């Protein structure tokens, strides 16, 4: 089985000329299919930049990134958009659309796949919300949900299309410790069930036991790629 993520000799800098500031130095990292990798490191060490590059949200400057069999370093903007449809994103803030119900927010993810017809789309969104324990909140707007519930909706949104890769950026940051751990446990369990790989950036020490592997980053370099 090919690796979900294969990063080689990645360098990345913001700005140009005198303002140029390099944030990633010769980063190499692989994430095997179906494994959960947690990336830790101080603020500004470049881990979020790495996550956006792997997620196809930034263009590769130097080095190679292969995600789910796609070469991102050779991809144009349209191809990057296409690759992103096969990745589930979970953000620090839930970023749910406030004018859509929980179910509609989850459906937005499935709507990107034209082969899924509307009845199937609705059914799968409902099933996914039941799986994350929100079967009785499907028609609620985000404003009527608690922080933990919103983050669970966003996990449902990230997972409903059964992506083979999930990228999560501090998903527990806005939550209290109990619901934070519940959310990550849920994410980890579902990813395992679907066979999806997870790359998660976090500061939260209490969830490290859920990882198959922990990667530390500092000053734009990976310390232990073990």
């Amino acid at each position, binding site marked *: 089985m090919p690796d979900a993520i294969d990063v080689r000799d990645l360098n990345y800098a913001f700005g140009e000329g005198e303002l140029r500031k390099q944030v990633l130095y010769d980063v190499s990292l692989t994430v095997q299919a179906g494994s959960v990798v947690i990336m830790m490191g101080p603020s500004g060490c470049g881990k979020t930049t790495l*996550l956006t590059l792997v997620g196809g949200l930034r263009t590769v400057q130097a080095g190679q990134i292969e995600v789910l069999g796609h070469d991102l370093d050779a991809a144009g903007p349209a191809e990057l958009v296409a690759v*992103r449809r096969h990745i589930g*994103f979970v*953000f*620090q*803030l839930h970023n749910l*659309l406030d004018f859509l119900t929980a179910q509609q927010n989850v459906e937005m993810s499935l709507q990107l796949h034209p082969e899924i017809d509307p009845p199937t789309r609705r059914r799968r969104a409902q099933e996914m919300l039941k799986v994350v324990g929100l079967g009785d909140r499907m028609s609620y707007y985000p404003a009527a949900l608690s922080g933990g519930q919103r983050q669970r909706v966003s996990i449902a949104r990230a997972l409903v299309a059964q992506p083979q890769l999930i990228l999560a950026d501090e998903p527990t940051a806005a939550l209290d410790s109990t619901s934070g751990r519940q959310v990550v446990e849920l994410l980890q369990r579902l990813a395992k069930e679907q066979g999806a790989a997870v790359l998660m950036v976090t500061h939260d020490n209490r969830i490290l036991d859920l990882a198959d592997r922990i990667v530390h980053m500092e000053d734009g370099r990976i310390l232990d790629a073990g």
Partner: protein
Amino acid sequence: MFFRDIPLAWLQLTHSKAKFFAAVTGVVVAVLLMWMQLGFLDALYRSATSVTNHLTGDLVLISPHTKEFARPESFPRRLLGRALGHPDVVAVHPFYEATGKWQNPWSGEKRPILVFGMPPDEPLFDATGLAEGWSKTNVADAGLFDEVCRPSLGDVGKHFHAGETVTAEINNRRVTVVGTVRIGVGFQADGNFVTTDANFLRLFPDRQASAIDVGVIELRPGADRLVVQMALRQAYGHELKVQTPEELIAAELKFLQDNAPIGFVFSMGVVVGCFIGFAIVYQVLFTDISSHLPQYATLKAMGYSDGYLVKTVLQAALILAFCGYIPGTILAAGLYEIGKRATMLPMDLSLHRGMQVFGLSLGMCFLSGLVAVRRLRSADPAEIF
């Protein structure tokens, strides 16, 4: 496809009912303003020709110095004889016309009224009520009063139909209303009074029977109007203008467009309406985008294209156009009715103007959508992590 997909634009617009209502109200105001301005403009143009529209006859003779039908230059009556020389011309009728001062019999107010004098055997108008009342005008100081007049002249029609004898003064001479007609008023006067040539000359003592204002030519049935017109033009040279009634109406409109700034004034009103709508719709769309930037960026991260978001914003703009157009048009219908009663100007909702206003509202909303879309550029999915 629109119906398969979650209607993002609609759900976003209508999520807050109060905001949606405010936005639609803005478009309604703009639509209403457009209807009113275009309606008045059109009504003024049409009212300017309300008298000429009712003129009978196949060809019309006027002085080359006559610029407006309601303010004619007189010409010698004997010139009419020349037209009779053409074999296809059956008759040429003299037509007198002047603006007099009507004294409202109830308020005493003096207002301008157009007085038409025509041969007793041949009323040269084709207007409702004329056939019934015309024969009664053949007595001294009698005439038919145009019911479609401004209220300033007094409610003559109501009193007349109630069976009262209505008398009033034109140029300080007492006249009796013996019937009513429906013609319509333009700018130059508040109403119309139709009577015989003899009565006309009584009301305007400084006018001579030998100086007429219009000659109305009647042709033999089956005659080629344009051929006769060519021949008569040669016969009259620069002395008189020979026009078809259509040409007379067209010339009347052209004069108005060239000499009265109303076209400009009302077009400005339409532009102002468009601008109000544009500003309101832009404000609504811009605020909606601004307050949802992280969410839009998330959609982009998930794999939605820029095109999808642009489409959503433009859809929202078009939804506002639709939702504002319909109530705006219904309100306009009500205001047209009120405007019609107040001014007696011909204001009607026409399909043509409906499409015009619809096109303008769509364009206005679409344009604000296009401008608001630029705000989407700030939705950068790489920045939301």
